[in-house]
C-alpha cells in the first residue's frame, strides 16, 4: 500500500499561476502503466501532457475545464485500487492546498533540492508570524523579503497582483443575458479566449492605460533594411524588434510591470511578437533580443514562425516575455490601440505603411502606474529617429555596387527618389539602369 506519485500542477511559465485542465484521459480508479498519458493542461500559450511515472491506480482530484493553481495536487497514483476509492474529494478548482507565493521575477522559481538557508531577519519574522520553515521548501535562501512576499500571498491569495487565479475578475463577472435568452445563441468561450481575456484584463481593467501614436517616414527605408535581410524583405518587423529591444534598455519602465504595490523591472529584454496565422493568436519570444544582431533577429523570427506553423513551439518560446510588439502592418490599418499583456507595462503596435504618404504609425499603450506619457513620448520619438535613420540618405554606402550601366552614375549619386531599374543589357547581361537613361531627361 503506497502512494506512488503525486501530480501537482506544474510551473510551466512564470506568468501562469494557474493552469486549465483541458483533458482527462483516464478515469479515477483505473489501472495505469508507467508512461501512460493521464491528462492535459493548457497554459496561456501551449498544452502540456502529464504521463504516469509508475504502474498503479490513478485518482484524479480535478475536473476538465477547471483552473488549478500551480503546485496544487490534481492527481495521484496508488499501488492498490482500494486506496483510490477512499479518497474521493476532488480538489476545488481555483483553490490551492498550499499557499503559492506570487510569481514575481524577484523570487526564485526554480526548485532547489539542497538545504534552505534563512537570514536572521527572516527567522525573526517567521517566528513572530508563526510561519514554519517548511513553507519555504525548495528554496535556497530565504530573506525577510521572501517572508513578506509569502505573507502577501497568504493574505490576498487569489486576486493579488501577479497572482490571479482562475476565478479572477474575468470569470467572476455575472453573465449578462437578454430578457429572452432564446434571442441569442450562446457559445461557450474557448479556454484560449478565456485566457486571452484574463491576460488583457490584468492591466487594461484598471483603466490606467493610455496610448500614444506617432509615425515615422518610410521613404527609402527598405533599401538599407533589405540589404541585411535574407528572407523577410520589405518587412519592418525585424528592424523594429531590433531597435525597440535596444531602446528598452534606456527605458526600463517599459520593460517591467506593476506588481500591485511596486514596479518590477525585468533584467532581460525578451521581446514578444504577436502572430496569428490560422493557428490562433500567439506571442512568440525573442529571448535576450537586445543582444541579437539584426540577422539573428530575422533568423529567430523565421525559426519561431516555422515552429508556430508546425505546432512545435517550446514552452520557452512563449514565456517570460517582457515587452510585446504587435504588427498589423499586413492588415491595412492606419492606427490602432494595442492592449498591454499581463505582467508587462507596455506594448508597441505597428500599423501598415501608408504608401502615398510614405509613413507608418507606431502606437504604444502603456500602464500609467509604471510610466507616463512624457516618457513614452520620448521613447516613441527615439524609436522614430532610429527607424528613420535607415532611410537611404543616411546610408549611402549601401548602394555602392549599384551603378547605371549606361551613364555609370551610382545609386548613391542619384538625386531622384525612384531608384534604378533592373534590366538586361543589349549584351544580355543583368544590370541596372537609372531613370534618366531609361526615360530620357
Amino acid at each position, binding site marked *: 500500500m503506497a502512494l506512488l506519485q503525486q501530480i501537482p500542477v506544474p510551473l510551466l511559465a512564470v506568468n501562469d499561476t494557474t493552469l486549465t485542465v483541458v483533458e482527462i484521459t483516464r478515469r479515477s480508479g483505473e489501472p495505469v502503466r508507467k508512461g501512460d498519458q493521464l491528462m492535459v493542461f493548457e497554459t496561456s500559450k501551449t498544452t502540456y501532457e502529464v504521463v504516469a511515472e509508475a504502474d498503479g491506480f490513478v485518482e484524479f482530484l480535478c475536473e476538465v475545464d477547471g483552473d488549478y493553481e500551480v503546485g496544487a495536487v490534481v492527481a495521484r497514483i496508488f499501488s492498490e485500487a482500494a486506496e483510490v476509492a477512499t479518497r474521493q474529494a476532488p480538489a476545488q478548482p481555483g483553490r490551492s492546498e498550499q499557499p503559492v507565493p506570487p510569481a514575481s521575477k524577484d*523570487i526564485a522559481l526554480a526548485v*532547489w533540492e*539542497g*538545504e534552505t*538557508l*534563512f*537570514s536572521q531577519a527572516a527567522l525573526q519574522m517567521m517566528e513572530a508570524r508563526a510561519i514554519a520553515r517548511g513553507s519555504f521548501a525548495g528554496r535556497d535562501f530565504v*530573506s525577510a523579503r521572501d517572508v513578506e512576499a509569502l505573507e502577501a500571498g497568504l493574505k490576498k491569495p487569489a486576486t493579488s497582483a501577479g497572482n490571479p487565479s482562475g476565478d479572477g475578475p474575468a470569470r467572476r463577472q455575472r453573465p449578462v443575458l437578454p430578457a429572452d435568452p432564446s434571442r441569442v445563441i450562446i457559445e461557450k468561450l474557448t479556454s484560449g479566449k478565456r485566457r486571452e481575456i484574463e491576460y488583457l484584463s490584468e492591466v487594461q481593467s484598471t483603466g490606467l492605460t493610455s496610448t500614444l501614436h506617432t509615425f515615422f517616414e518610410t521613404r527609402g527605408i527598405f533599401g538599407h533594411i533589405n540589404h541585411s535581410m535574407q528572407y523577410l524583405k520589405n518587412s519592418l518587423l525585424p528592424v523594429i524588434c531590433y531597435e525597440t529591444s535596444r531602446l528598452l*534598455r534606456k527605458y*526600463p519602465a517599459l520593460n517591467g510591470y506593476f506588481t500591485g504595490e511596486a514596479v518590477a523591472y525585468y533584467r532581460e529584454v525578451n521581446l514578444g511578437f504577436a502572430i496569428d496565422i490560422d493557428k490562433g493568436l500567439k506571442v512568440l519570444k525573442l529571448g535576450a533580443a537586445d543582444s541579437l544582431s539584426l540577422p539573428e533577429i530575422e533568423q529567430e523570427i523565421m525559426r519561431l514562425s516555422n515552429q508556430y506553423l508546425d505546432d512545435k513551439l517550446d514552452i520557452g518560446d512563449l514565456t517570460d516575455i517582457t515587452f510585446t510588439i504587435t504588427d498589423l502592418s499586413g492588415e491595412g490599418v492606419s492606427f490602432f490601440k494595442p492592449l498591454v499583456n499581463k505582467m508587462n507595462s507596455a506594448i508597441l503596435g505597428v500599423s501598415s505603411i501608408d504608401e502615398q504618404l510614405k509613413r507608418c504609425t507606431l502606437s504604444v499603450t502603456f500602464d500609467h502606474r509604471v510610466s507616463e506619457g512624457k516618457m513614452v513620448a520620448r521613447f516613441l520619438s527615439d524609436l522614430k529617429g532610429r527607424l528613420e535613420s535607415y532611410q537611404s540618405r543616411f546610408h549611402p554606402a549601401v548602394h555602392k555596387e549599384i551603378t547605371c550601366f549606361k551613364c555609370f552614375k551610382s545609386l548613391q549619386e542619384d538625386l531622384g527618389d525612384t531608384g534604378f531599374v533592373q534590366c538586361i543589357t543589349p549584351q544580355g547581361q543583368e544590370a541596372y539602369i537609372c531613370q534618366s537613361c531609361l526615360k530620357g531627361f
Partner: protein
Amino acid sequence: MMQAIKINHRIIKEALRIRKVEEKFLQLFSQGKLNGTVHTCVGQEFSAVAFAGQLKKKDFIFSNHRCHGHYIAFTGDVRGLLAELLGKASGTSGGIGSSQHLCHHNFFSNGIQGGIVPVAAGYALAGKLKNNGAIGIVFIGDGTLGEGVLYETMNILSKWEIPLLIVCENNFYAQSTPQHINLAGDIQARARAFGIRTFKGNTWEPELLMEQSAEAIAFVRDQQKPCFFQVDTYRLNAHSKGDDDRDPEDVALHRQKDYLHIFQQQSPSYYQMYEEAINQEIDAMVEEIFKESDLPIEKYFQPSTRTDDREWKTLEPVNKRQVELINTFFQEKLVSDERTVFLGEDIHSPYGGAFKVTKELSFLRPERVFTTPISEAAVVGISNGLALNGFRPITEIMFGDFMTLAMDQIINHASKFHHMFNRKVNCPVVIRTPMGGRRGYGPTHSQTLDKFLVGIDNVKTVALNTFIDPALIYRSVSSEEHPVIVIENKTDYGKKLLHTRPRNFTCQANGDPYPVVRISPAVSAPTLTLVAYGGMADMAASLLETIFSETDLLAELIIPSLISDLPLDILTESASRTGRLVVLEEGSPFGGIGGELIAGVTEKADVKIRVRRIAALPVPIPSVKSLEHLVLPEKNRIIQELKESF
C-alpha cells in the same frame, strides 16, 4: 705654435658631422621649429666616435639625454635623427621620443639618469646567455654618479661577469652644478671597489682615445666582463638651451682646446670642404623632412575595448596548494621555454625563495635562474633588458612592499619602451610579488600596495586568488607582449584551490585569459554585488553565508583577476540588477581600486546603484595581532559596514 697634428680624417669627418647636425638643431630650435628640448654634445663628439663608432653591428648601446652623438656614430642614421627631432613620422621613434628617446636597431636612449644602466646590463646578459658574442656600452654623465641603481648594477655586473662597458662622460657639470659641489671621492675608485677594471681618457687626444676605447671594448668582448671608462671632456654649449651659468672664460678656454677647433685652425681648407659637404647633406635632408607629416594619432594609440566572456563554467576544487601549482607551472615553463629566466632575491634552491615559489628551479636550469643581491631596482632593470633582448624574465620581489624600489624601472622603463620607441620594441617582463597581511609581519612586510600598480599605462596587473588555477593565469601572463605585474598573496599560498565553497552558492568562472570568478546564490536572485580580489577573495567567499544571515543581503561575489582593466560589463550588469555594489580591498581606500571600480560601473550603469568601499584603515599595518586584525577588513567590520550602508 701648436704641434702639427696627425689624425685620421674619417674620425674628423664623423665628429664634424655630429657637430653640424647638433648646430642645425640649435638653429632650428631658435627658429621655433623643434618641440621640447635638446641636449647637445658639442665639444664631446670624439667620445661618441671613439666608443659608439668602434662597436660591431651586433653590439648595442644604451644612452642618456645627451645621445645624438652616440646615435650618429653607431647607426649613421642622421636622417632618422633629424626627422625625429622635427617630430615627423619617419623619425627614428616616429616623433614620439624626440631628442632623448631614440631607438634604432640596437640603439636605445632614455631620459632617466641612471635607469638605463641596469637595462643595459640585462641586455648584455641576454647576449651572454645567447652566446652571440655581442657586447654593449652604456653612456652616463658624471652627474649620474649620484644615482644608486648604478652601484646596484655595478655590483651585479661584476659578480655575474656581464660584458658591458660603462662609459662615464665626465664633463665636470651636472646641468648647472659644478662637480665639486655634489661629487665625493674618486670616480674610477667607485668601479674599482666592485672589482671592475677601469680606464681613463679624454676627448682632447682623440687618437689616443680611439686606441684606449678599442682596448676597453676588446677587453669586454674577450674577457666577457664589465669595464668602466672615464672620459674627461667638456661641453661647449649650454646644458640644453641657453641655460649656461658657467664662467665664460672657462668655456672660452675649452673652445680653444677643442680638437675640431684646432683642426680648423690647422687645416682650414679641409675643414671648410668637409663642413660644406656635411652642411649641404643636412640642409637637403631638412628641406625634405619639412614636407613630411606627423604620425597620425591612430598609429600611436588604439583604444582597447575589453569584452568580457559570458560563458560561465562551474569551478571544481583542486587538491593542491596554490604555491605548488605555481611552482609546477614554473618548473615546466623553465624547462620547456628557453627564453624563460627567473630572477629574485634568495630564489636559489634549496631555499627556493622566501615563500618557496621558486623551489627546485635552480636545480633544473641553473644558468637561467639568478639569485640576486638585495637590489630591487637593478634586478627589475636587468629583467627589462632581458625582455628587450628576447627573453621572458619572471622576476620575484620578495615582499610586495619592496615594489616601490623598482617603480622607476616599471614606470619609466618597462611601461614606456614600447610606445616611446614608436612600437619598435616590446618589453614582456613579468614581475611577481606577494602582498597582504594577517601574518604579523608588520608595517613594511604586510601592505597591499596594488593601488600604486594599477594605473600604469601599458602594464597589466593581475591578482591571483584561490579560485582560479594560477597555472592558467601564468599561461596567459607568459603570452603577453607587454609588462605584467602579478600580485600573489602570502596567506593564499598554502590554500588549496576552491577550498572555500559557501553552501547554496555556485562557483563559476568565465573564459577570459584572466578569468572572472562569480559566486552566486544557487537559485535566488542576489541582492548585493560584492567584489573582492587577491587575498580578500577567499575571505569574502567564506563570509557569504554570514553576510546573508546577519544582513539579509544575498550577495553575488565577483572576483576579477585582471585588476588593471576591470570586467566592468559583468560588474555593471550585476550591480544594476542588485542595486548595491560593495568592493572589499586589503589596501586603504583612498585612490584605490574600489574607487576606480565604482567610478567605472557608475559610468556605465543606467540605474542608480548604492555603493560602498570596505578597505584597510589608512595606517601602516601593525604587527600585533589584535591591531592587525582591526586595521585589515575583517568579518565584524564588514558586516557592520554592510549593515550601515544598506
